[in-house]
């Protein structure tokens, strides 16, 4: 599951160590914005060393530097041999970025005896052009597992203020969800940047979930538990899903074509959604009592 994805500065030994125990589903080890230009080399080597020696037991995503910098290739050359699960390219504005990257990663996979195609891509969409081309990007490579929305840079590109309520990125959020689902991949929401505003985080995460995002990135470890909770199937939803599945079973056994539950007709999409919810709940080991 990719409910929560925590950004970890790639040049911080203590944060790279702590990442292993924090309750994030995925970690995004950041070689880009979290690292000053004169420390790119240090971060690259530190992150690679951490990957080699730590057993993170979670999905590891590396945010590499942009393709218009001189850093992205050394980033990949140093990191791919350490077998990260995924690479996060930034400012993805079209599929050519993805193609160039995929090619370079394939080359490095071959050189390092890694199953070709196994390292995934999670493109960060944070420009207007990226939003426009979101579907093209999402479907440009079988490596792509999800689209991540980068709200701060996007607002800048849209030349408007980034706010907690998020009206400025409302459309972009829906667009990302649609593009991702149309391409058969996940959609991950942008981080909530006020570390101290718990209520704000909850509202923002709930909004993202209701828009169809399957997870949310975070810049603060303090946000993780709430994000996990909000992006997990809710207890009532799990209970209801069980009831739906049971009702479908009963109807099948009784030879009835129409399934009803609590006076409501259960058609195919509802039944399918119930299966999805139970499958997610199963993966999280959630019991009915939670």
């Amino acid at each position, binding site marked *: 599951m990719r409910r929560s994805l925590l950004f970890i500065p790639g040049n911080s030994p203590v944060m790279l*160590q*702590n990442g292993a125990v*924090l*309750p994030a589903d995925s970690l995004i080890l950041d070689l880009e914005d979290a690292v000053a230009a004169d420390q790119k080399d240090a971060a690259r080597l530190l992150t690679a060393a951490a990957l080699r020696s730590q057993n993170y037991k979670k999905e590891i995503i590396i945010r590499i530097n942009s393709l218009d910098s001189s850093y992205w290739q050394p980033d990949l050359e140093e990191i791919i041999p350490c077998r990260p699960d995924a690479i996060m390219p930034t400012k993805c504005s079209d599929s050519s970025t993805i193609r160039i990257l995929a090619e370079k990663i394939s080359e490095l996979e071959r050189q390092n005896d890694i199953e070709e195609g196994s390292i995934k891509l999670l493109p960060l969409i944070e420009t207007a052009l990226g939003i426009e081309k979101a579907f093209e990007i999402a479907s440009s490579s079988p490596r792509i597992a999800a689209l991540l929305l980068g709200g701060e840079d996007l607002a800048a590109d849209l030349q408007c203020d980034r706010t907690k309520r998020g009206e400025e990125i409302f459309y972009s959020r829906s667009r990302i969800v649609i593009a991702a689902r149309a391409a058969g991949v996940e959609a991950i929401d942008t981080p909530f940047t006020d570390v101290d505003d718990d209520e704000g985080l909850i509202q923002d995460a709930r909004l993202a979930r209701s828009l169809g995002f399957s997870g949310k990135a975070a810049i603060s470890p303090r946000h993780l538990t709430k994000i996990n909770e909000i992006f997990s199937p809710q207890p009532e939803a799990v209970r209801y899903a069980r009831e739906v599945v049971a009702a479908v079973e009963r109807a099948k056994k009784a030879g009835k074509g129409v399934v009803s539950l609590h006076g409501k007709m259960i058609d195919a999409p509802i039944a399918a959604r119930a299966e999805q919810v139970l499958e997610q709940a199963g993966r999280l080991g959630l019991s009915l009592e939670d």
Partner: protein
Amino acid sequence: MQGKVVNSITDALRLAGIRDSMTLSFHHHLRNGDYVLNLVMSAVRELGLKDITINASAIFDCHLPLVELIKDGTVSGLECNYLGALVGKSISSGILKKPVIFRTHGGRPADLERGSAHIDIAFIAAPTADSQGNISGKYGPSACGSLGYAFADARYADKVVAVTDNLVPYPLADFSIAETEVDYVVIQDRIGDPGGIVSGTTRITRDPIGLLMADMAAEAIKASGLLRDGFSFQTGAGGASLAAAFALEKIMLKECIQGSFASGGITSQLVNMHKRGCFETLLDVQCFDLGAVESIRVNPQHKEISAGHYASPEAASAVVDSLDAVILGATEVDLSFNVNVHTNSQGLIMGGSGGHSDTAAGAKLAIIIAPLMRARMPLIVDRVHTVSTPGDTIDMVVTQYGIAVNPRRADLFDLLRQSRLNIVTIEELKETAEKICGKPKALNDEDGRIVAEVHYRDGSIIDTIRHRNHPHTDN
């Protein structure tokens, strides 16, 4: 004025009959803002006295002048429940010939009662006093709140001197220590620095690991079954301890649990929990911040208690005996769950039990919260440098890599295993730490001179601390 008021500390010393080799006592409620101990000892030195033993409930960094007094022979003995690192490292390097006697907050009044400790002259820093020596800590510019640790001094010392910077007209109605026990009153301009006495506010840690462990501890308390109406609780004042109280508060408010009391060192956070209905009563042996001081002044449910009432094993009963859960720290924990809070991993003195062994002995659930390593030094060791609190009084150790339950608590182990907490063995925690940090080489065998004795609350010597110099950092 008149009454028992004397002109100076020196006069008080003379009138009280100060001689060489006497024991003088001090309480630590003015914490790192205390002026009184230094003022008194400076006067003692001026009088040319030698060989004095200091019995202070705690020694802080502000008491650094003690080091010179020890070196020049004014002071030759030290007894305390806590010794901060700054003075501690000098003690570790062997400046005192006689071993320091470490007691616990409960053991100190107990030993005074048993007669195995004796105070000739007690100096009681008194934020407010009247001319006859009625004393309160709740009022005045140097207000510190509860004077819990001073009661035994007032009761058992041969002579008692109140040192105040706030003399009020007789009688001080809301007194804590009665004039019946006080011999002299000395007025000073300032008895302490308010900034060092109490924090403006104590803050919950922002460290994600501290917050993670706090949540784990609260979950564990819930899973233990103790968290129901009537629940009682104690925690420290460090950022991580406060985080644990906060995590507990969230659960208590959500499930409408009305606890009976919170005890020990009281912070604004506990005051707020009381106001929100989490605890009926606050039993306060010391105040850590302004919010607590304000509360003890005005709220009859916020009670000042003496250290003896709090934790003495000689009392008919003490608060710790009624405690459900306590959260404590540790510098080291060993495979037998023995806990060290006296020395750091280099063997240097930087703390003391305080109420650690008392609460661990009394509470139904004693929980240690500590990160599995601190800057590469693993928490879990084969054998602690110093046994501050014996392992049979410790029920669990909470680290970010999992919770270890004392095998003696099979009942607790079963309950916790049913929760979603990551329960591991203490050996597994040690292995995890060593896998991450590498296996530390053991320090040289300790065969140096004994510089401190650790007295358990029953008066027995539970461990000794040996001479150690500050490690060289070059090679």
